């Protein structure tokens, strides 16, 4: 296999491209899925991108000169040999929302400084699993008609960042449109919604945007569109029958945080009627200690890891409790006031104590919260 020269200023080049849509520099195709319809679809959509066929994916990844940043430019189409669906791992001692994750694509070219993928993923490629038929088979046997499910694709990737060439949104939204007890969520920071406008979600899909303050979006969410672009895109997708959600996660503390974040919360309700918002989640910055070193090495200019973190009960860094309470209280009050209490708020990976103090209740367990979120969405 040829070795590629690492381009200088690759981040700038990537940023330029991302202003439009992510296009990889090169596509590697696992020979096992060379003639798969999804592979054909992707290569047709990426006609100008050179590709190479890889015979042994395992040894190819092992031999590839590992560089996380550099890897953002390379796409690997391969076959998922394990399970596609996994429960969100949550974190010990803090409440989880009973979310299920579909791993149909892995990794993300947006390159946010705080991204957990830098810690989770052990190879640098943007990975697309072509065998979507196996996912649908797995979903058919996994989903029970007697339970509620919230399921989404945005945990180990951005749900829509590759959608202009994978077109997976069309397959997935169509599948879930017929499921009465399942809410499908696409989580994104992009404005990549063209394919979504061609499908009727039948009230079963929520498109959710991660939002942050403008300062954090500009400095820490390196290749992502601005907040206002994200909110305007959310406004647009509502007219196609979708409900929307917003995730303020991670909320990052800095001296002017209050003024900056209020502006974004205000922007939401200025643009979007609360009736169309399925939920807003809140979560302050938290990360495993090892990620701190990775962030420091990859992004020496960022200051986000230098605020007042303590080691939480799950062994991860999180802001000191009084600071978290202060932040959540503000957000909850803003959202309640601006939506007249019409929007459901939940906290991501927080303790029962904080739930109780901020929202006035706490779920008995993850099942209760998960079911509640599903019912709220399906009733909208």
């Amino acid at each position, binding site marked *: 296999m040829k070795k590629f020269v690492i381009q200088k200023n690759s981040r700038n080049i990537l940023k330029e491209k991302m202003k439009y849509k992510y296009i990889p520099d090169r596509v590697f195709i696992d020979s096992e899925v060379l003639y798969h319809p999804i592979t054909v679809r992707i290569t047709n959509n990426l006609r100008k991108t050179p590709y190479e066929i890889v015979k042994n994916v395992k040894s190819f990844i092992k031999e590839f000169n590992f560089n996380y940043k550099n890897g953002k430019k390379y796409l690997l189409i391969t076959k998922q040999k394990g399970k596609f669906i996994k429960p969100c791992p949550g974190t010990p001692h803090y409440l989880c929302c009973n979310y299920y994750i579909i791993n149909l694509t892995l990794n993300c070219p947006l390159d946010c400084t705080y991204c957990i993928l830098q810690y989770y993923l052990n190879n640098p490629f943007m990975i697309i699993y072509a065998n979507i038929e196996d996912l649908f088979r797995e979903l058919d046997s996994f989903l029970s008609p007697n339970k509620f499910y919230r399921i989404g694709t945005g945990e180990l990737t951005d749900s829509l960042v590759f959608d202009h060439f994978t077109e997976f949104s069309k397959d997935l939204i169509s599948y879930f449109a017929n499921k009465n007890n399942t809410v499908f969520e696409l989580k994104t920071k992009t404005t990549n919604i063209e394919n979504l406008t061609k499908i009727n979600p039948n009230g079963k899909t929520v498109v959710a945007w991660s939002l942050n303050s403008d300062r954090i979006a500009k400095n820490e969410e390196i290749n992502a569109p601005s907040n206002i672009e994200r909110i305007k895109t959310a406004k647009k997708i509502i007219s196609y029958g979708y409900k929307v959600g917003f995730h303020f996660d991670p909320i990052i503390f800095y001296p002017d945080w209050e003024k900056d974040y209020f502006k974004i919360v205000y922007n939401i309700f200025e643009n979007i009627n609360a009736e169309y918002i399925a939920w807003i989640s809140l979560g302050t910055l938290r990360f495993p200690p090892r990620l701190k070193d990775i962030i420091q090495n990859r992004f020496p200019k960022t200051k986000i890891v*230098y605020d007042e973190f*303590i080691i*939480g*009960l799950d062994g991860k860094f999180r802001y000191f*409790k*009084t600071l978290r309470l202060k932040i959540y209280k503000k957000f909850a009050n803003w959202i309640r006031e601006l939506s007249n209490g019409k929007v459901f708020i939940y906290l991501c990976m927080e303790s*029962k*104590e904080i739930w109780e103090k901020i929202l006035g209740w706490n779920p008995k367990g993850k099942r209760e919260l998960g079911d509640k979120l599903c019912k709220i969405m399906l009733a909208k």
Partner: protein
Amino acid sequence: MIKKIISIKKINLKDDRFRISLCNELTLLKFSIQKFGLLKPPILTRRNNKFIIISGWRKVLACQELGIEKIPAFLWNERDDLKILLFKIHEYLTMKKELNFLEKAQIISKLYHFGMEKREIIQNYLPLLKISPSNYDFETYLSLSELSPSIKRAILKGNITFQGARALTKFSLSEQEFLLPIIIPMSSNYQKEFLINVYEILKKEGITLDELFSRRDLKEIIESRNFSQLEKIEKIIDKVRSIRYPSYTAFKKFFELWVKEIKFPKGVNILHDQFFEEEKLSLKIKFKNDKELRDILEKLEKICNSEKFKEYFKRKDEI
């Protein structure tokens, strides 16, 4: 390799490209040379009309200090530096039982600067040095090799541990020199914590080390004549910690003051988790018989009804 008698003057002692050990302790070696002579001659090679040492640095230095002008040495006529270095490393690894982390750092740095690919070092040499084969560890050891000479000397004397040294790599050479006298009296755990706190304050506030230590509160501690050296160090550690963690420090003080003011009965301890993350506090009672326990419980009941006791629970979220 041929054995020759060489004048020490013809050895370029400034060229330490093959030197791994930085230990300059020569007392025992000099004693041995005086008593038995130079039993194993050093190995040299020639560069730019002078000899340079491949192995046997301390032997050459000991002989020089003893005033010996000529010594026996093996000469290796090899032009490839990397080949010599690899020989030296393998010789070193078979001879020494346990390498210290600075020697490991020297080996990694030399391999890298002699042109060996990072990947090869990580895969083949880190495991040989009993280091996990990761990019992270490679970078850590590379930066350890770049510490200032006085820091390296302090490490060799056992005054700075691996964790402390690693934390020091984030500072410039002049900053390392500035911090050295402050951290030497600290125990190893405090060295690491203190250095990380200092570094993170500088990064967060965008100030220099000079600016941080010119702060009035820190300056007062440093310049005070009322404290012993050890007391000063403790106060500096505490002050830096409170600058780095203002909310946590304020809360801890609030809690400690509350416990002090409540005056819990003897044998009673109020406990919290390290960072007050858990909602609940715990109570530990030591007693020797039923009467003592009853006395304690009576006092505790009175305490529970006091306004002072309730104040903590009312105010704790606002601190």
